[in-house]
């Protein structure tokens, strides 16, 4: 592994780490590397860095690597880590916050599919007030280029009456618009 000058990385990323602590309400500095989070994480096998290593990287100020990791996108927010952490760190909440920050910085990388998913999802809710399941599935397939994904279950779902062809629009769409406009106004 390459050498890292921690004094340097920490001073360079001081403001970011402060913002992360404030937004998440969590202090990664509390982690003492017991690795219970990693041991219990059901998706560690698909991550580039296990959760305990993300904690250590934050302690060392390796912010760019963390924000560019696949881990923050493929965390399923199941909160097994949070439940078991003996230092009471809400690790899932930290992952959430990191994902929000990466999302707003436009960092996609290995989490490209997840970006497409979240953007399509939020647009669907903005336009209808509720999630339009077919629209979401189509939007994801077009956005990711995986055109055939889940086409095998589409027809059976339709036959079972589990898919509505048209979206349901709620009456209070103007209120939803106000909420979205406000989110943009405060920089989210």
């Amino acid at each position, binding site marked *: 592994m390459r050498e890292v000058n921690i004094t340097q990385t920490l001073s360079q990323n001081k403001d970011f780490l402060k913002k992360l602590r404030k937004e998440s309400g969590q202090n990664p500095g509390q982690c003492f590397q017991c690795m219970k989070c990693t041991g219990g994480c*059901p*998706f560690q*096998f*698909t991550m580039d860095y296990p959760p305990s290593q993300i904690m250590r990287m934050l302690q060392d100020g390796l912010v760019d690597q963390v924000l560019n990791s696949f881990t923050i*996108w*493929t965390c*399923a*927010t*199941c*909160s*097994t880590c*949070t*439940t078991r952490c003996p230092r*009471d760190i*809400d690790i*899932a909440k930290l992952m*959430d916050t990191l*994902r*929000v920050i990466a*999302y*707003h910085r436009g960092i996609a990388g290995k989490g490209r*599919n*997840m970006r*497409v*998913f*979240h953007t399509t*999802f*939020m647009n669907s*809710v903005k336009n209808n*007030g*509720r*999630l339009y*399941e077919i629209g*979401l*599935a189509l939007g*994801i397939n077009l956005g*990711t280029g995986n055109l055939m*994904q889940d086409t*095998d*279950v589409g027809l*059976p*779902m339709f036959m*079972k*009456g*589990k*898919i*509505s062809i048209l979206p349901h629009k*709620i*009456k*209070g769409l103007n*209120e*939803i618009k*106000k*909420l*979205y*406009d*406000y*989110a943009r106004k*405060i920089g*989210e």
Partner: protein
Amino acid sequence: MKVAYYPGCSLSGSAKELDISIKAISGPLGMELIEVPDWNCCGASSAHSTGHFLSFALPARNILKAESTGCQEFTAPCPACYVRTFLAQKQFNEEPEMKQHLENALGQKFGPSSIGIKNVIEVFMDKFTQNFVKKPLKGLRVVNYYGCALVKPPKIFRFFDDPENPKSLDKLMETCGAESIEWPYKTECCSASLCFTNQDATFKACRDILQVARDAGAHAIVVACTLCQSNLDMRQSQVNKKYRTNFNIPVIYFTQLMGLAMGIPADRLGLDKLFVDPKPLLRSLNLI
């Protein structure tokens, strides 16, 4: 007793049978469900991945609508909706800054929120006793699968059950007369939030859960979560294809089995909407 009912997006689509079966059993159990007027999506799980305000404001709007019904309790069957709504109420009452943002956005002032946010298991758990069981589910051996969102993380939510070894569904199923088998995957995550974006992870998680359920000797998997259900049921054929397995395990909502035990006819419980047909199993045990 009147309860504000928030079906959430999946109950009008991919989880219709949960909606159907909840409506079928709530009347006999003495509950009147009042649908939250003009409800919106709670935003799970994208709102909290893309920002803080909307992940709070979307469920907060639903809480305000629910309060307007005059009900004392609010229930959301989908655990993701439940968790987001519970958290939003906590922020509404405890984080003045967040509430201020909401008031600014909607141009209105709001008082504190007092409606009790409950999961649907919690609501039924209190009311369902042996007296309601007309047709015990004798001979049915099940594993109860809670998934992750229902019971975690316990330090933030005041959950009604143990986060590592929950028992509420087990007890409900025993009351129904079924046999609940102990198994180690009660709360293992099924990866539903990744089912569109990282399917390799999803298929592996589902394969593991199905395999452990089969090894435990279960006839069926009992679920409460809409996302777990569609993942384990609808995607069972995809798992079989990918791993060359031959799983054929019905994945049934606890409310459907409660309905059967209460003597409600199978055709009023949405059993035909499940992908893995539970009828041959139920017929072989003379339960339908």
